């Protein structure tokens, strides 16, 4: 089976996911052809182990993101098995390439074994699905689910100039200060409780929230006592939330609070009291004061972002 990888880029360099796509193909015993749209990261891609050749796809059609134009420029260069990142753009290009070639697409795969058998979360992770592919397909891989390939290679680079009809145009860029998300829509929530000491200390939670694009929540105790907005309140009489990650800081975990957040996919609790009930529902618990834990958490998370 030959693998074609469409590189995921990060503006002007490869996104770390590209290494994982190549690693995934290598784990199936295959070398891969890597296509770099707009030529971005082609030199870097050539150095990654498992890459047989790099196609640096250039052309005006790559100046703006139009999934239709990109797919039309890229699909003729793709082989039997096509791997793309399950990022929004990756999913869109992959879908169009699959439809163009009349082959199925399987999105958001988290594991891949010989066969080829893949598994992917469905129902927002409430179940997993295992599928076997015989023949051509496009597969998008979830970022960070696969081992990244190392870079000790020197593969050849072909530059191919492509053209395609671009049917969309940017009329106006709207720069907006990133608003902090509401607790009901955020994928990560960091909430504080009475253990934060004073309302002013919530600024530390806000900083973390801004680093990872999280929402800031609060327990009822602090909403009532410190006059925080009710829309931040998580719990029985506040919002019921189900983020991927809920970080509870200085929240003891009264049953009314648990009622609003216990269905979160993962819960990280930070509390100085080792017997706090919040640890009973936490997947990860750190027994520490917020003063000690929050600065460390902030720097660890910003390291990941960069």
């Amino acid at each position, binding site marked *: 089976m030959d693998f074609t990888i469409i590189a995921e880029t990060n503006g002007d360099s490869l996104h770390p996911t590209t290494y994982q796509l190549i690693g995934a193909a290598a784990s199936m015993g295959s070398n891969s052809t890597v296509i770099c749209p707009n030529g971005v990261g082609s030199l870097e891609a050539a150095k990654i182990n498992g890459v047989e050749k790099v196609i640096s796809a250039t052309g005006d059609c790559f100046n703006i993101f139009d999934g239709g134009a990109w797919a039309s420029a890229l699909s003729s260069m793709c082989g039997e098995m096509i791997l793309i990142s399950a990022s929004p753009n990756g999913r869109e290009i992959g879908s169009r390439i699959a439809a163009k070639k009349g082959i199925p697409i399987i999105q958001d795969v988290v594991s891949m074994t010989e066969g080829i058998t893949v598994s992917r979360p469905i129902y927002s992770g409430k179940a997993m699905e295992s599928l076997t592919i015989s023949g051509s397909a496009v597969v998008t891989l979830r970022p960070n689910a696969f081992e990244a390939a190392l870079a000790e290679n020197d593969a050849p680079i072909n530059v191919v100039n492509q053209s395609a009809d671009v049917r969309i145009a940017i009329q106006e860029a709207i720069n907006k200060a990133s608003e902090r998300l509401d607790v009901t829509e955020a994928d990560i929530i960091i909430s504080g409780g009475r253990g934060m000491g004073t309302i002013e200390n919530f600024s530390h939670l806000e900083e973390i929230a801004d680093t990872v694009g999280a929402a800031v929540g609060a327990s*009822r105790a602090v909403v009532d006592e410190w006059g925080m907005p009710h829309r931040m309140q998580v719990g*029985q*009489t506040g919002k*019921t939330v189900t983020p991927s990650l809920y970080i509870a800081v200085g929240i003891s975990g009264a*049953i*009314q609070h648990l009622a609003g957040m216990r269905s979160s996919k993962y819960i990280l609790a930070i509390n100085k009291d080792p017997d706090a009930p919040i640890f009973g529902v936490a997947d990860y618990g750190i027994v520490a004061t917020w003063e000690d834990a929050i600065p460390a958490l902030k720097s660890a998370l910003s390291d990941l972002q960069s």
Partner: protein
Amino acid sequence: MAYEALDFYDVDSLLTEEERMVRDMVRDWVDEEVIPNIEIACRDGVFPDEWRVALGEMGVLGAPLKGYDCPGLSYTAYGVICRELERGDSGLRSFASVQGSLAMYPIWDFGSEEQKNYYLPKMASGEWIGCFGLTEPDYGSNPGDMITKAEDMGDHYLLNGAKMWITNGSIAELAVVWAKLDGVIRGFIVEKNDPGFSAPEMKGKHSLKASVTSELVFQDCKIPKDRMLPGVKGLRGPFSCLNNARYGISWGALGSAQACFDSAKEYAMSRIQFNHPIASYQLVQNKLSWMLREITKGQLLAYHLGQKKDAGNWIPEHISLAKMNNVDIALEIARVARDIHGANGILDEYPIMRHMANLESVKTYEGTHDIHNLIIGRHITGIQAFTREA
């Protein structure tokens, strides 16, 4: 978490597509707009005006009435609406009951064509709120001896007297008032600004706090001659209204009961004592199982009564039984739910104590529990036991 209605016998699967859609519409609205705001409304003792607007926009006021821009739904749909509203709060359902069954209905059934055309469209849209004046400070279960009277003054009527426990009184644009004209009970439409009419709000309730309750006071209240309802004389007028309202309550109480069951189940599953969820203990399971049993029976009662209402083969005693039974079990379910919630059950974090306090009113209004027993007793024996006089 999304509300999953307890429906052990799939009674709702008997609803028509239209009834199901109306149910979902009201249920979603209650989830999104009522439940998040009800505790504040209760604390402030107000009926939020947005709810009036929303009920009008959804088009559910006066649900089973046809024509005059009224919804024209089935009685079963009306019951379902009451149930969904009362899951939010009995005060909210009371608002809808009074508007539809007690104010719109008598105009629709006993009013003149002019009265219907003038009042009903604006009441169906929620623009005008109505109220219903029957009960008096000294005449509750015995309305026939009411004191409020009307005098024919030639070119107008003059009303004197007072009504009490009037839901929506102070926020109403109009009141349907029952008063004696030459010793015969007649219905009159009194408008907010009629001279000699006032509707002071009654404060200090521990029940139905998100509902407005008022007195209606008539001191030489002058109303035009065309405001009397021409189509009915005697107690049959107010009793026809009450039949419809009581029917709605028989469904509504199930909404409260389901809310209490839902909360109790959720709480019992998550509350850990002696290392295990209290739901794993037999005494708690016994309580939950009893709740399910009574709710299921109540649902069958309400649904079957709805079918009878729609088919027109019902008698008032059928309604008495359902109102009495379903309110009775709802109140007991609320109390047992409070018990399961332990001390937490008294907090406004949970809906329990609010429903419990509301249901104390619901048990009493629209024919007390005991009066309904007497209605059924009379049906069984043929002997009335309301009064010692024959």
